[in-house]
């Protein structure tokens, strides 16, 4: 295994595994320290550095769709979600279900920075004896809630978790991150029909609306527009935001929390490959690792 610089920002280190009580909300935010000790923007940049670094080390992987969803995941893991890195199966936790499993590097980065496992493990991504499988495996990595890689399955899984929380009278919130290309899958619409039918107001889906899938722009490959109207007609409360604007994301999640009796979807308009100039909107970097040279440029841009 090559030794690679991991560019640990150290930003989130102070937060790891230390639960603190947000007295206002009366809720436990294990990562509440982040709110003061480091900005979400800084954390986002750290996650991006992890992503490009680990994919470069692996020699394969999916930078584009990992980078586009960084702010979404940052806001959830380092501000909004109740979770405990020292107790990943904590019954009262909020749940994050990654449906677009090829964004595994993003989730691994967020988990490592949250203290679920050492950030230096990130570099083992996709290597034969690593826990960090190319697509997430829930049985292997603490904090990974779902096994993914075949698209279209996460929302159904999230409904199951949301139903269980209701049955157990838990007020946990369930978040699931979907790709926009992934919304081609019929299973997404089966699930989209079911969630409001079951009145799952504890469920929020986020669509990473980066307008690209593998074969091209979504409007050319399989047009999903008007995407918001589709979700609306399936009974969802729809919120559209700039998915790189942390303020907009925070208030969107807050709005979703207030909606009762139905599920909410946040359509987060993003740029695939966001943060690395030559990866932005570049189809090639959906599923290609940066070379060592490209990595260095990327890290400079993300410094």
């Amino acid at each position, binding site marked *: 295994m090559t030794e690679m610089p991991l560019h640990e920002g150290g930003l989130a280190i102070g937060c790891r595994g230390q639960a603190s009580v947000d007295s206002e909300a009366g809720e436990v935010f294990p990562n509440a320290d982040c709110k003061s000790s480091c900005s979400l923007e800084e954390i986002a940049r750290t996650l991006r550095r992890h992503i490009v670094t680990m994919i470069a080390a692996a020699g394969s992987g999916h930078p584009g769709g990992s980078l586009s969803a960084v702010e979404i995941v940052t806001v959830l893991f380092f501000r909004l979600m109740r979770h405990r890195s020292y107790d990943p199966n904590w019954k009262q936790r909020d749940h994050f279900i990654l449906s677009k499993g090829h964004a595994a590097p993003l989730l691994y980065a967020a988990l490592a920075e949250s203290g679920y496992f050492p950030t230096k493990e990130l570099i083992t991504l996709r290597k034969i004896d690593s826990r960090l499988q190319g697509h997430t495996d*829930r049985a292997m990595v603490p904090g990974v809630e779902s096994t993914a890689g*075949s698209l279209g399955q996460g929302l159904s899984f999230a409904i*199951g978790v*949301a139903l269980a929380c209701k*049955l157990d009278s838990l007020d946990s919130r369930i978040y699931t991150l979907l790709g926009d290309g992934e919304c081609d899958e019929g299973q997404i619409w*089966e699930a989209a029909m*079911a969630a409001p039918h*079951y009145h799952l107001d504890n469920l929020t889906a986020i669509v990473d609306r980066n307008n690209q899938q593998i074969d091209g722009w979504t409007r050319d490959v399989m047009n999903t527009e008007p995407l918001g109207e589709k979700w609306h007609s399936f009974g969802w409360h729809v919120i559209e935001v700039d998915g790189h604007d942390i303020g907009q994301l925070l208030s969107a999640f807050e709005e979703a929390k207030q909606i009762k009796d139905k599920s909410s979807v946040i359509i987060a308009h993003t740029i695939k490959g966001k943060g690395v100039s030559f990866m932005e909107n570049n189809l090639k970097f959906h599923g290609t690792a940066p070379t060592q040279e490209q990595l260095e440029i990327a890290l400079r841009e993300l410094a």
Partner: protein
Amino acid sequence: MPQEMSTRKAYGRALVELGEKNPDIVVLDADLSMSTMTHMFAQRFPHRFFDCGIAEQNMIGIAAGLAASGKIPFASTFAVFVPGRCFDQLRLSVAQSQLNVKIVATHGGITSGEDGFSHHAIEDLALICALPGFYVLVPTDAIETTQMVRTAAVTPAPFYIRLSRPSTPVIFDENYHFVLGKAVTLRQGNDAAIIAIGIMVSRALEAAKHLAQEGIECRVVSMPTIKPLDEEAILQSAKETGAIVTAEEHLKHGGLGSRVAQVVAQHYAIPMDFVAIEDTYARSGKAEELLQRYGLTAPAIEQAVKSAISRKQVHHS
């Protein structure tokens, strides 16, 4: 227990019994609860029953999420739709996720009859046995069904239980005890062994009776656990009888016969024959007519036994 009862009816009752005891039992269906008999549970525990509509893929994903949260989901529809309509979901969200999901599929085989081939599940075992980690069960009768459902509920692993539509003879009495992974010898004999599942077990017994009249003594083994196979019982049969015939309401490919053949070939090669559906779809018709037409009968088993016996060691002389 009456003389005849459908395995799906036994399932419906067992679910209610389990539901009373364990609040974590939840049940899902895909708009077929009247036929799968999950409606009995739905009526008794409406808040723990989730109808997913005609959306089998979503049903499996929801079941997986429930299981991940500590529930024990039983998900039902026809065997032709699960695994067939949601194989990839069973693969990723259940098998690869190692989740405690119980699939109970009714209307297995061709005895769903008049609805025709779109409703005949003749390949479900080939599919479901291709999912590492799954227990795959086919009960012989209503009594065994009840016990299987109880076993599944307390064994934390994915299960697939295949039931049938028609009423079928009750073979076991209340003292019968189903053991996961174990074959059951229903008749002794050393000239050949018939290994059967589901509705073919009673036909195997019938065939053995006829053959005994001709002086051929067949062992009859029921193999309620298709996966993992009771290899010991298979090899014992192989060694003690020298000829094995399998009988199943399934394609010849990928079911009981193909699984037994691999065990035998790898450990103790002896002649075999397969009573199963050849590589074709069946038509609409009454259950019994179809069983006749597609060769799933006692006489077919008898013929297969004779064929296997005739091949014993001939080519090794």
